[in-house]
């Protein structure tokens, strides 16, 4: 499932870039992220807790920056997480693009998400809606944080 989210940040691009590339800090913008720590080589480990009604998921996984180009203001991330209780996994790729527009920065996130295994049986359309919400919250939170600092 593919999503595109944009947010406008009241801060210059360089500042937003620094903010976004601070992965542990940026990850805290994802609702439900418990801990994120660097595991070396541009990789991070973390946990994401998601609850849909009575179904509680704890997704353990890795996040890696697979490409970054500060000049162009683009970066790609790949996240893979697994819930071993329910049986299922989430894979996501995110392409970030930052564009400066008169002192503000437009943040655009194109993401492609797959929800696999039992997890996916909960209902792909609902999951899609949840994921959409999650990414929107993430983008908005990033924008808020970067504007604030």
């Amino acid at each position, binding site marked *: *499932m593919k999503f595109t989210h944009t947010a406008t940040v009241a801060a210059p691009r360089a500042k937003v870039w620094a903010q976004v590339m601070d992965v542990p800090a940026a990850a805290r913008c994802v609702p439900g992220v418990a801990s994120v720590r660097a595991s070396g080589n541009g990789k991070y480990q973390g946990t994401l807790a998601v609850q849909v009604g009575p179904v509680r998921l704890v997704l353990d996984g890795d996040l890696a920056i697979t490409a970054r180009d500060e000049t162009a203001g683009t970066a790609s991330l790949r996240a893979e997480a697994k819930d071993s209780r329910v049986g299922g996994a989430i*894979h996501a790729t995110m392409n970030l693009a930052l564009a400066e527009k008169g002192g503000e920065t437009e943040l655009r996130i194109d993401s492609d998400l*797959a929800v*696999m295994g039992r997890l996916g*049986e909960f209902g792909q359309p609902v999951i899609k809606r949840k994921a959409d919400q999650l990414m929107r919250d993430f983008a908005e939170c990033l924008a808020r944080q970067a504007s604030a600092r």
Partner: protein
Amino acid sequence: MPGAPGFRPVTNVADRTASVLGDPEYRVEGRDKVTGAARYAADVAMPGMLHVAFVASPYAHARIVAIDVSDARALPGVRAVITGEDTKPARLGRRLQDWPVLCWDRVLFIGDRVAAIAADSAAIAEDAARRVRVEYEELPAVLDADAARGPQAPVLHPDASSYRYFGGDRPSIPHPNLQAYAVHRHGDVDAGFRAAHRVYSHTFTVPRTHQAYIEPRAALVWLDGEVLHVVTTNKAPFALRQQMAASLGIAEANIVVDAGHIGGDFGGKGLSLDEFALAYLARASGRPVRSVTRYADDMQATNTRHAATIALTTAVDADGRILAHTSRVVFDGGAYAAGKPVATLLPGDAMLTLAGYRVPAASVEAMSVYTNQVPAGHSRAPGQPQNAFAAESHIDLVARSLGIDPLVMRERNVVRPGDIDITGAPWHGTDGAEVLARLRTAAHYAEARTTPHSLGAPAIGSGVALGVRHVGRGRASMVLRLSRGRVELRTGVADQGGGAYTLFQRIVATELGIPLGRVTVTRGATDAVPNDPGVGGSRVTPVQGGAALDAARKLRVRLAELGRALADAGDLEVIGEASQETHDASMYAYALRVLVDVETGSTKVEHATLVADVGTVINPVALRGQLEGGFVFGLGQALMEELRLEDGRVTNPSFADYKIPTIADVPPLQVELITGDPGPGPFGAKSVGELANPAVGAAVANAVQDAVGVRVWSLPITAEKIWAELTRPDEVREVAGSAED
């Protein structure tokens, strides 16, 4: 069952007279089914039995980099863990064995299996499955049949030439991503097009659907010395024995396949999957192992009906008479061709793109394509629901364009014995004119077409469609034993609900002139009865029924030779055999009336008339059941059924979201039987199991157009599709609706 001999009596009927053929039948296994005594594969348990779970690919296409099963193996209660390394290069399949028992290098669809676990309980096995760590390298997935045929497409089966193909040489294919390819030509197509008054081209699409049987697939496998025992939901046990022998390298004599009652099949249960991996697990664990497929997995990872794109072009004269026809059918075969049993590796009736009509010249091209989607296999009248939807929509569109009444159009073109049909051969079957004449009267066609409807009420429309299905072919044999005045028929047929045992009982009793109660039918596993081709291809009545009749006749002849009556002839045994190779076909036709809610597009079939040429009736209740059930099956595919896929994943893998009709959705159905034209089956019987479902979709589409003037080009004919056409700006609609040359 363990220890027990292979025979299970399936008849327990009180004495009834043998003057049976006209009387409604009493289902011999009915009592067991309604009391719950009937045993299905998932009911069978053995002491010490282990439960199985599989690890399946979450990717549509990926390379397996590494598999780590140590955590799974370490879990208490886990008795065996196997991966593709243990099973390679074993592959399974009905005709072409292209589906790995477990994948070892690449996975080709979401649900493709990479490991299997046997454990003390299903919960432990599942838990262990979650602990298997598989590292994949994702590869570009080929998700549609057009992309798969492109020059850049990754070749999904680079080793195809090494795959086992049963029975001769595999037909050649012009592109490596094709499972099958076939062309047919007859007559002077070019001349037909040159002489045409008009030429029409239309393209239709049909989605993947599931067979929607109630009983889950299940298998129980154990080793007894060298002998591998298999309890299965497969409806063709002898064929499964052959497939397992070939793919596992075990002599057929060392495999016993036992299929009991089957809780619905609709074509899907000819392909077995779990049985193969279970054989390895049984060996690895030394224990009986059982698996029962979860329905969500069944919908994601077994063998669905092929999605297809059907492009038809037909040349007609000014009266609408067909002069020539060309067609191209592209079936999305999914990741494996293993589910298809026929030699062409196409869905059975892939080439019949204008069935039931006189077609003096035709050029037909059909192919089945490898993609990274759910594999496709057989489903009730394989190939027909796709082709009948296209053909019968197409004919209607041509009629409308020429200003000819759709039924008149069909009357002008329908095949009569001796006419050249779409196969290029003289038609040998139902007189189509008779079917349509019956339809015209039974459905009160003239009145139905002139009934006005009131303002504000739903729009009313009527639609017709016809269909054709062959009478089943093949060979079968069974044993008939006489002992103390009673006869026992021993068969290998695993009844999937069609009523086979009742049929055999009635045939034998009728032929011998004895009461039904003196005829017992027993089913045996593959070690206890002669070879049987299994249920499928509309075969049971004409072929296996023929064998039952032959057995009864042979017994009668023996009795005559001995000059004895049945009651005092002592013990006798004969083997009945049948070989039904004639190319007979039956025809059926529908007239439906629909109501369309013009604001929502919601469509209800309000009434249906079905005329079917069935030959002699042996099981009147079951025959009706097959026709009515076929109609409901077709209605589901017409109005609602569709496996929705996103990136190779089924997004509606449950009956909460994959809807099939319930009885509340079924309109009054008037069934008119044509019985006067005997078929090749016992006493003149034909086949009905796949006779009624394929044409329903087109009949609905045609009725919808009649009601509201819009055409739906794909199945299912959902409210939203109709609504979208109805609300589309007129200019745009004109263009889409006149897809003619």
